[in-house]
C-alpha cells in the first residue's frame, strides 16, 4: 500500500539525454530528482527483499524469539533446530524427493513433446493443422482452478490416482510451451532442413539432429518455465494423490502450514521449510536470470 501513496510523484522523470542548452539550465533540479528517485527505488526494493531476509533469519531463531523479536535480522540464540527437525523427524526428505522426481519427468517430457508438436505446427503441412492450432488456443483459455474436480474424476477413472503417472502425465500438456517452440522453429530458415532432407534424412532425423540443436534458446526457455511450473505446482497434486508417500513439497508444506500435521505456531519450522523449498527455484532464477526476464515477457507475447 505504502508504495502506491508515492505514486503521483513518480512519472516526472529527469529529462534523459536532452539538448545541451536544456541540460545546463536544469542541472541542479536533475540532481535532486535523481536522488529522490534512488531513495524511492531503494525503499521499494527494501519492501520487496526484506520479507525474504526475515524468513531466513527467523528460521534460525528459537520459537519464542521468532515471536518476540520478528524484526531482528541476526538471531540472538542461533539454532538449527528447525532444520534438524525437518530432516530427522518429519517427512520433508520424502516430499523433496517426490518434488524432484515429478519436476524431472515433467520437464523432460515437456521439452520433448512441446518441441515435437511445435515443429509439426511450424513446418510439417498436414490436414487439420489449423484445427489443432485453434484447439490449443482455446485450451489455453480454460482456467486451471476450474479443472480441479474434473481432473480428479478422469485420473480416478483411468486408475492412476495415487501414482507417479497420475502426477506427471496430466502436467505434460502445456499449450503455451508448444507456442514458444512453434514460434522459434518458424524463425529458423527452412533452407537448413532442405539441405538435410536432400542428404536423405527423414523428418524425425531432420528434427532431432538438425533443427532441435539449433533451438537451444527456446528449449532452455521451456526447461526453465517447466521447472518453475512443476516445482511450484500445488492443486494438481492435491487432486491426484492422498498417499503420504507421494506428497510433494508444495502439498506437504501447505499441510504443515495449515496445521494439519502439527500443533502450535512453529514459525521457525514452517519458515525453514518454505525457505528450503524456495532454494531450487531461486538457484535456477539466479543462474538463468537474463533469460527468465526475457522469457516471461516472451511467453505471454506468444
Amino acid at each position, binding site marked *: 500500500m505504502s508504495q502506491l501513496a508515492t505514486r503521483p510523484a513518480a512519472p516526472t522523470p529527469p529529462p534523459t539525454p536532452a539538448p545541451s542548452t536544456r541540460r545546463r539550465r536544469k542541472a541542479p533540479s536533475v540532481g535532486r530528482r535523481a536522488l529522490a528517485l534512488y531513495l524511492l527505488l531503494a525503499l521499494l*526494493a527494501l519492501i520487496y527483499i526484506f520479507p525474504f531476509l526475515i524468513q531466513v533469519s527467523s528460521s534460525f531463531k528459537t520459537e519464542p524469539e521468532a515471536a518476540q523479536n520478528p524484526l531482528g535480522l541476526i538471531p540472538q540464540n542461533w539454532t538449527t533446530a528447525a532444520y534438524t527437525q525437518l530432516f530427522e523427524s518429519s517427512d520433508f526428505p520424502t516430499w523433496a524427493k517426490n518434488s524432484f522426481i515429478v519436476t524431472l519427468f515433467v520437464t523432460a517430457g515437456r521439452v520433448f513433446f512441446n518441441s515435437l508438436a511445435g515443429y509439426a505446427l511450424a513446418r510439417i503441412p*498436414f490436414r487439420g493443422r489449423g484445427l489443432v492450432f485453434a484447439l490449443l488456443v482455446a485450451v489455453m483459455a480454460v482456467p486451471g482452478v476450474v479443472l*480441479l*474436480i474434473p481432473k480428479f474424476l*478422469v485420473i480416478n*477413472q483411468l486408475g492412476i490416482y495415487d501414482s507417479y503417472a497420475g502426477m506427471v502425465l496430466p502436467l505434460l*500438456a502445456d499449450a503455451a510451451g508448444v507456442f514458444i517452440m512453434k514460434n522459434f522453429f518458424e524463425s529458423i530458415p*527452412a533452407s537448413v532442413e532442405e539441405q538435410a532432407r536432400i542428404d536423405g534424412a527423414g523428418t524425425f532425423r531432420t528434427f532431432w539432429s538438425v533443427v532441435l540443436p539449433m533451438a537451444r534458446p527456446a528449449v532452455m526457455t521451456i526447461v526453465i518455465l517447466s521447472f518453475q511450473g512443476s516445482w511450484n505446482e500445488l492443486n494438481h497434486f492435491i487432486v491426484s494423490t492422498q498417499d503420504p508417500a507421494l506428497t510433494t513439497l508444495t502439498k506437504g508444506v501447505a499441510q504443515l502450514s495449515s496445521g494439519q500435521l502439527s500443533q502450535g505456531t512453529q514459525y521457525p519450522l514452517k519458515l525453514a521449510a518454505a525457505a528450503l523449498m524456495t532454494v531450487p527455484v531461486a538457484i535456477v532464477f539466479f543462474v538463468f536470470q537474463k533469460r527468465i526476464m526475457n522469457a*516471461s515477457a516472451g511467453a505471454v507475447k506468444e
Partner: protein
Amino acid sequence: MARSIPSPPGGGTARRRTTRGRQGLTGWLFISPVVVILGLFLVVPVLMAAWVSVSDWTGRGSPVGGSVSFVGGQNYTAILDGDGLASRDFGTSIRNNLYYVLLVVPLQTGLSMFLAVLVNRQVLRGRGFFRTAFYFPSVTSSVAITVLWLFLFSSTGVVNRVLSFISVSGPNWFQDPRGVIHVILAAVGIRTAPEALTAPGFLGVSGWEWLAGPSVAMSAFILMAIFTTSGTFMLLFIAALQNISGEVQEAAMVDGANGWQRFWQVTLPMLRPTLFTVLTLGLIGSWQVFDQIYTGTQGGPAKTTLTPAYLSFSTAFNNQRWGEGAAIAFILFAIIVTLTLLQRLALRERDVPRRRRMVPVTASSTGARTASSSALPVKEPKP
C-alpha cells in the same frame, strides 16, 4: 490463425500426393502426444464434470456407472436459489472474491507499470538489481509465500511491529473477520445495519454483508497478491517500454511536454495493448484464488476468505457433494469468460477509432490479445 501452408515446390502430381500423405502422417505423429494428453486431461475432464454437475453422484464408484442418475439443474438451483447454506456460502465466496478482484487488479496493474517506468530509465544505475528485487517474489511458490505471509501478518508479527513504530496498533490480521468498509463505518459511528439492508438479499447474503468490503484477513491476501504479481507484470511493461522509440519521447520533449504530460499523452497510449494484456491476465488470475486459501486460512475467519475456487474444492472433496462442487466450478468458469469478454469489448471500443489498422484481434481467444501487443511498436504511426 489459419496460416497458408507452404507447398513443396516442383514434383509431379502423383509424387506430391504421396509426399503429402507421408508428411500428413508424420505431422499427426509429431503432434499426437500433446493432442492426446490435452484431450485426456482437459477436454474429457470438462465433459465428465459437466455430467457430474447435473447428476447425484456421491463420490462412490464411477460417475458414469448405472447407479448415478440425472437430476437436471438441481445442483445449480441449490447454489443459486438464495436460501439454504450452500447458496449463502456461494454468495459469500463471490462477495469475498469480488472485493479481491476490485482491489488487486487495479493496484497490481498500477504498481507494476509504476515500477516498470521507474526501472526503465536509461540513466539509472543498478537497474538490473532493482528489476531482480521486484521480480524475485514472482518465482517463489504460492505456498512458500503464504507461509511467509502468515508469519509477517501474525498478531505479533513484522507488520504489526512496524505499524507500532508509528503508534498504530495493527489488527490480528488472519484472525480478523471484520469487513474493511464496516470498520470504516464503525469509526464514524455506524455500527449496525440500516433496516433496509438486513433482509437476505442476492444469493442469500444481506445487503449489509455485501457492503462489508474485504475482511481484514482478505486484505492481507490482497497485499500478498500485489506483492507477488507486480514483478511479472512489470516485465511485460518493461518489454513494451523498450519498444517505444526514444525519438517519440524526444519529439514530445521538443514540443515542450513535461515528464507528467509525456507519460499520460505519449507513453500510456502506446502501452495500451500491454495494459490490456495485463488487465486480462490479472482478471483471469484473481478469480482463481485457491493455493493461498488452502495453505493459509481454509476460508476462515468466519468464511471471509472463502473463494469460489476453494468452495468448489471443499464442497466436493471435503463434503462429498460432488454435483454442487462441479456446478460451482462451471459457474466460476462462466464468470471468468464473461468478464474477460466484457473487458475485451469495453477496451477495444476505445481502441478502434484511434488506430484501426493495428488491432488484429480475431477471436475471443487468449492468443489474440498477445498478437495485438506485439503489433504495437511496429505499426505505430510516427508523429
